[in-house]
């Protein structure tokens, strides 16, 4: 790749001939952080509804939660936030949180236990995407008013089972646990919507930033909250601008028109390596790229076929080419950084072994179909697999579709080979265990949403029970071991093959300090970012 044609050099030469003055290098205002990012997935900024990556990035900075995780200090685990302290009852079913005094919402209203209780009740009753996180503890629209209550400055949660404390708090640390300003939101309620329409495009939080504007597919602007209870943010403004193309993000960054670019492709990251005004930060995220093999398919449901597929995937080849620097091989459903995550990666690209397995099973030919979302990495991964399968006499038909269509087919259990990502919903291992390794009812009409169910995989009862039991184990060490065991068995039998874990490569100007995209468990945090 060293002797590639110097197009840029050529263009530069002709440009210099054209314009002796040359280009001036721009700089963003010193008190403003400007980020180029794909943010067209945001459909709402209501913490009771928001469930998209970019939306959560915004919500996390507008609101505070009862408890929190610091992505810059993951080892510390759960930290107090709006709740100063908490205690669990003897039977493990009641959690009482004590609210911090003197914190104010952006509106000036004080943050009360009543707001916290109402926020959780609201999220459950709204019943939007993230509601299930709270539903896990037995809260339903009917009973949540009794189960989530407040008493003075204390919030009381009554669970239906003695869940592990870490499990409950990890869930409360997710965006759906944000505390919203009851008075402000209710003033904007329309009908039975709990102010959802209004809160989708406005903010009513107590977080380090307030929402200045959100223009969908265009930009989000945040303004620092100077009265933030943990101290005012270092920068006065954060502007996130939607830039679709990696090349455009890179140009903006190189020109100094943005401070941070978050969606550079591996080649563009490589391309800026020589630029000493810029740096690239790698951060391990929680997303898993996996392959699901539908057990409805007569060929894919054969265990030998599943086994062979594990050896047909060119893990190292992909990791070192089109996924370079942005995905690392990871063959377990729990992402690194999660409690109990396993780091064993037993499978390698081994065509001969796959051929042997298939020949022994009498499989010498066959055709399967994959429906893959029109995202470069997925399509390239599918094509690589296609080429490998061709070597052992198997045909892979690739159908490229839009995200919505793929999801539709996947939910209808009609995707034979699925290649795509899964992002954890909250910071507890159960988030992935419950979807990869849990399927209580494999019937077509069960209407479930687990990945196991979508791949028509009847998870053995033993594994179902192990997953459920892990949520109730109070001893963290024991809990870790339980998850390691589940993952070990999973690698043996599951027709769902985790392949890679996401590394976010954030490119930024040299002067940007303390950036975090949220690690594997959280979202981006702007409060501590500085520019020197």
């Amino acid at each position, binding site marked *: 790749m060293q002797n590639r044609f110097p197009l840029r050099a050529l263009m530069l030469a002709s440009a210099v001939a054209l314009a002796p003055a040359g280009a001036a290098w721009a700089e963003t205002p010193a008190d403003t952080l400007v980020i180029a990012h794909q943010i067209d997935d945001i459909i709402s900024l209501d913490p009771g509804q928001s469930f998209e990556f970019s939306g959560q990035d915004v919500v996390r900075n507008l609101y505070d939660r009862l408890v929190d995780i610091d992505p810059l200090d993951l080892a510390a685990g759960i930290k107090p936030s709006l709740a100063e302290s908490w205690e669990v009852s003897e039977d493990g079913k009641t959690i009482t949180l004590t609210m911090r005094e003197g914190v104010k919402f952006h509106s000036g209203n004080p943050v009360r236990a009543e707001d916290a209780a109402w926020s959780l009740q609201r999220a459950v009753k709204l*019943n939007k995407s993230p509601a299930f996180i709270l539903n896990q503890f037995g809260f339903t629209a009917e009973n949540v008013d009794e189960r989530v209550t407040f008493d003075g400055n204390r919030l009381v949660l009554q669970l239906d089972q003695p869940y592990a404390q870490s499990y409950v708090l990890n869930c409360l640390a997710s965006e759906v646990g944000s505390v919203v300003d009851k008075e402000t939101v209710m003033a904007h309620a329309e009908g039975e919507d709990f102010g959802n329409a209004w809160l989708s495009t406005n903010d009513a939080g107590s977080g380090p930033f307030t929402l200045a504007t959100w223009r969908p597919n265009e930009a989000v602007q945040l303004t620092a909250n100077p009265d933030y209870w943990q101290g005012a943010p270092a920068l006065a403004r954060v502007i996130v601008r939607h830039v679709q193309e990696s090349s455009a993000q890179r140009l903006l960054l190189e020109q100094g028109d943005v401070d941070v670019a978050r969606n550079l492709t591996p080649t563009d990251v490589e391309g800026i390596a020589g630029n000493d005004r810029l740096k690239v930060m790698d951060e391990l995220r929680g997303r898993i790229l996996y392959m699901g093999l539908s057990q409805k398919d007569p060929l894919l449901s054969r265990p030998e076929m599943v086994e062979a597929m594990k050896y047909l995937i060119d893990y190292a080849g992909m990791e070192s080419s089109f996924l370079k620097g942005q995905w690392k091989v990871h063959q377990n459903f729990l992402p690194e950084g999660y409690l109990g995550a396993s780091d064993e990666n037993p499978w390698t690209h081994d065509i001969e072994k796959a051929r042997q397995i298939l020949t022994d099973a009498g499989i010498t030919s066959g055709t399967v179909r994959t429906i893959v979302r029109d995202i470069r990495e997925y399509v390239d991964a599918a094509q690589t697999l296609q080429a490998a399968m061709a070597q052992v006499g198997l045909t892979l038909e690739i159908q490229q579709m839009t995200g919505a269509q793929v999801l539709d087919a996947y939910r209808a259990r009609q995707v034979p080979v699925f290649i795509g990502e899964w992002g954890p919903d909250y910071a507890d291992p159960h988030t992935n265990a419950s979807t990869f390794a849990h399927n209580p009812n494999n019937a077509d009409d069960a209407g479930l949403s687990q990945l196991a169910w979508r791949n028509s995989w009847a998870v053995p009862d033993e594994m179902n029970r192990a997953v459920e039991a892990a949520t109730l184990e109070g001893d963290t060490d024991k809990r870790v071991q339980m998850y390691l065991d589940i993952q070990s068995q999973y690698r043996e039998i599951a027709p769902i093959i985790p392949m890679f874990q996401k590394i976010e490569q954030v490119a930024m100007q040299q002067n940007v300090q303390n950036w975090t995209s949220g690690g594997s468990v959280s979202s981006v945090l702007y409060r501590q970012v500085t520019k020197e």
Partner: protein
Amino acid sequence: MVQPDMLDQPGRDGPPPAAGAPSGRAMRLGRRFAGVALSLVLTLLGLLLVTFVIGRIMPIDPVLKVVGERATQAQYDAAYQAMGLDKPIWQQFLRYMAEVLRGDFGRSISTGHAVAQDLRRVFPATLELATLGTMIGVLVGVPLGVVAAARRGGWIDQVARVVALVGYSMPIFWLGLMGLLLFYGILGWVGGPGRQGIVYDGMVPTVTGLILVDSLVAGDWAAFRDAFSHIVLPAGLLGYFSLAYISRMTRSFMLEQLSAEYVVTARVKGLSERRVIWGHAFRNILVPLVTVIALSFGSLLEGSVLTEIVFSWPGIGQYITKALLAGDMNAVLGGTVVVGTCFVALNLLSDILYRLLDPRAT
């Protein structure tokens, strides 16, 4: 276009009819416009119906966008009913029509905003781009086409032909990215992707939504210069494409007129070639030319999705495409209504201009 001669009575003079029957002409015009208006309304209605049906038969499930990937069947069903999707299509359509007539386009599920609010934001972005692009196309394309026709076979004609054909044949996203790399990345002559520099973002109060206009209204020259430096490249690109089309059509129209007898008459009178071409032939191509320009403007108003993506231009093309891919039918319908109305309005406008420019029109 040959009108029956009103005075074709041999050897007798009579008053020209235009002055003779003003009320008749007015009535004819009135009736004609009523007819046009009716057909426009029908076109729009049909447009809505087609869009609506497409939205319903399309295998993209809007509910999923609302409830998200993790939704349980119960959540899904609740949202399905809340969105009124359980009702028969014709009922849904009637309900939608009633809302549109009240000026309510509903809420977009892919942006969380009211569709009307979104459109007020994205349409001016496209309008600004399309207008500037068309202006470039007209200001360069028309003279180029006229000169090419006047000097048929000459070097200007050949150059114009090549320029136009290259314009027709270039993949726009390729040209766009390369332009961005050269003029922004290397030369730094123009602004980068987006409508404005970050510093100016939200600094000019929104009046029309056209940043160039708004910054002038606010008297903010720096903001105007900034906005101009951002729009000039994408507009130049779109302008190039409409230039290609407009110059070819102009040339073809001019060739037709230049072979007409009245051009010989004009030459016999001793008029200069410039006067023959611009004063006589050109005036005769105005009518079809206006139609061509309107069509080209209309197609730019649809929003060039690819240009918008390359230049991070938050226009209506991207908006509708994104909404469509998400099954966000309120947004698609709203966007289609706006685009369709523009198209229809441009039709009407070229009809009116035709009546103004061509004395033979009744």
